[in-house]
């Protein structure tokens, strides 16, 4: 006895996650919250970038952070010390956040009224790309100490993102980072993603990134929510708008 789909999908895998991600996105849209999913290798500077961005945004927009880590609450505690509302998800053995983890936060915790939800994924350039969380925008970070060839080595995550932030740019004079190669590799995989070169430490380049987030909030409110495909492909027209 067999069931065969003649070249078509009989059942899509990880469909549960995609359904829950869509549900999470509806929550965010109902509340006019723009949700950004930050992904990178460990140590690329996600927490610092989020912290500094919120610092620049706080007079205009309210934010909270959902922190994903395998163990502990170090990042959430660090943000709380800066008076940032942060909620920690400890994934245990999982190397990525999934939509169910985020849904539990949305359903079970008393979240503050906010305009922006920052989700900091577990540090990893592979697994998080496979699990949409309900975000409107995907932001991928690469620090200059990691090497310019990373987009070529991790094409999926760099192809399926809306913005790329090159971090720790204050270290550029001290490391052999081939910036031209990086831009070429990124643009081969993702022609439309907004690109920012930032030093969160010095604040250099931070303002354009923050203003990009602001422009995305305005687009979300004027269009009543972003729409992303099941796998999280960006709507290219939105990206054109925000990166122009």
């Amino acid at each position, binding site marked *: 006895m067999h069931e*065969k789909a003649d070249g078509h999908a009989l059942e899509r895998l990880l469909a549960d996650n995609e*359904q829950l991600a869509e549900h999470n996105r509806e929550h965010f849209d109902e509340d006019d919250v723009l949700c950004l999913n930050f992904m990178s290798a460990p140590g690329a500077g996600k927490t610092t970038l989020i912290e500094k961005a919120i610092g620049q945004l706080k007079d205009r927009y309210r934010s909270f952070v959902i922190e994903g880590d395998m163990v502990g609450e170090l990042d959430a505690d660090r943000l709380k010390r800066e008076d940032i509302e942060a909620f920690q998800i400890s994934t245990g053995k999982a190397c990525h956040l999934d939509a169910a983890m985020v849904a539990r936060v949305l359903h079970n915790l008393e979240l503050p009224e906010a305009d922006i939800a920052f989700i900091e994924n577990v540090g990893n350039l592979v697994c998080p790309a*496979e699990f949409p969380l309900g975000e409107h925008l995907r932001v991928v970070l690469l620090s200059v100490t990691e090497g310019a060839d990373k987009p070529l080595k991790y094409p999926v995550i760099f192809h399926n993102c809306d913005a790329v932030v090159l971090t720790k740019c204050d270290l550029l004079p001290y490391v052999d980072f081939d910036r031209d190669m990086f831009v070429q590799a990124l643009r081969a995989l993702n022609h439309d993603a907004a690109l920012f070169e930032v030093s969160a430490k010095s604040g250099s380049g931070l303002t354009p990134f923050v203003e990009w987030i602001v422009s995305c909030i305005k687009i979300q409110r004027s269009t009543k929510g972003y729409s992303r495909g099941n796998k999280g492909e960006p709507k290219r027209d939105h990206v054109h708008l925000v990166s122009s």
Partner: protein
Amino acid sequence: MHETTIAGSILKIVRARAIESKRRAISVSVRYGEFRNVDPESLAFAFAALRQESPRTACCELKLTEVKALALCKRAEHEYRPRLEKMYRCDTCGGPIGEIACGEELDITEIVLAAQPALDDENESATEHESATERESATERDVMVDECASELDGGKSERGGLAAAGIKSRGDTAFGEEKRNA
């Protein structure tokens, strides 16, 4: 190691079909796109470990097929094979990747079940059959799905809410394209 999650997702579907048909699973065919982050060896390893947790799937063979990526270039919509050696650029004009035409699949294409029904002592329900590990990983997600359904449905019914919200629940999937051959 998200391949463990994928293996669990495969086995959950196969086990449900096997229980529905009161049979054991012989094999399951899965295709994965080149532009998905799937390592076939890791997936096979995780599948081999997890299939033991139910007698319905203990002997189930996993057949994996990779779907090579085909992209349309951004510049002129040439169809081409994006390859690392070419920095994923178009073979014809050197343009960047636009849309991925194929290579992002991750799905089951075939499930083969035993011709004969399984012995009576294997005809347990899906819930009874779930292994401790699967229960642990599945329960939280399912509770979440049910909570979401209940919320969307005003608490009237769990699965009705899912359907009303366009969210498919386990076992509700329509098999529009499939063929069933006994």
